[in-house]
């Protein structure tokens, strides 16, 4: 009897974990797919279809360490742009201004999910809640 209960519980939790995992997976895919569309419309002209940037003018988006280190600031970069700042990306300095955008927080979360999981990056989902929290702390 005990064994039966335990195995039933195990099965149940396994199903739950699987379902949750699947749910997260679907959310990730939804963010990623919409993010790609936003990227094409708002980012690709400068940063390139493969995130390769443009010579020394526009920084590439392939520096995973940079993206990880500045994760909490990425939403602010997109929303308010960058002015008179020097960023070191892939060991090179970039000082061009980045224009502000009128993207909504959800769109920022989506496009960041796309960027941080493309071009050789693999950093998982960036949720709306995370983007909203980050946006409150913009300098």
């Amino acid at each position: 009897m005990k064994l039966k209960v335990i195995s039933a519980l195990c099965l149940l939790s396994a199903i739950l974990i699987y379902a949750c995992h699947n749910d997260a997976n679907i959310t990730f895919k939804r963010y990623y797919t919409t993010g790609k569309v936003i990227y094409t419309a708002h980012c690709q002209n400068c940063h390139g279809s493969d995130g390769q940037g443009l010579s020394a003018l526009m920084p590439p988006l392939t520096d995973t360490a940079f993206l990880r280190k500045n994760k909490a600031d990425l939403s602010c970069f997109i929303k308010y742009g960058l002015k008179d700042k020097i960023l070191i990306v892939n060991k090179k300095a970039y000082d061009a201004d980045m224009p502000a955008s009128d993207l909504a927080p959800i769109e920022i979360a989506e496009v960041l999910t796309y960027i941080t999981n493309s071009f050789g990056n693999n950093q998982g989902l960036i949720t709306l809640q995370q983007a909203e929290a980050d946006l409150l702390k913009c300098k």
Partner: protein
Amino acid sequence: MKRLIGAMAVLFLASACKFNSAGNNTLPIYGNRTPVTKTVDGKTVTDTLYQTIPDFKTINQYGDSITGKSLNGNIYVADFFFTTCPSICPVMHRNMLNVYQAYKNDKDVKIISYTIDPKHDSVNVLKKYADKLGIAGNTWWLLQGKKEEIYKLSESYLVRKPEEDAKQLFIHDGYFILVDKQKRIRGTYDGTVPDQVNHLIANIKILKAEPDQK
């Protein structure tokens, strides 16, 4: 009768195909053309005068004075841009870099980019932009001139005359214009579309093979 019509249709189609393949070997000449009648050796000859790019006065990224005459003997590709352009210019110049890579060792071919924001894009700014873009030498010139003159000149290149909107941003289109040694327009290509730019790179080769362009 039916057969005759069929045969004619086939002939007609064949001739259409032939016309197309002939079109691959020479490029069309764009713009207005005016017939001129003159007397040569006592005979009256009618010639066609093609639209050409008028002379202009500009300075390049090295501070050298560049006029229409500086391009004598060159086939060239022209575009209009500004260094702080947030929209189509980066993608245009990413694509133009491919044209540059293809012809940077060819003395006959040049690229010129007129800035439509000469107030901001000084010689220093243009030089910095060129360095960052990774271009050197005299294949690709970034040109600063008087704003009104450059805007007027854009009409000769058959592109949209630049405008400034309420936000003081410059509206312009992203065409690359191919000009031959006689300063006639031989092609226009959407500089934001990689396929069209590949087409341009191929067409420069076709143009170079024309007897007039040697």
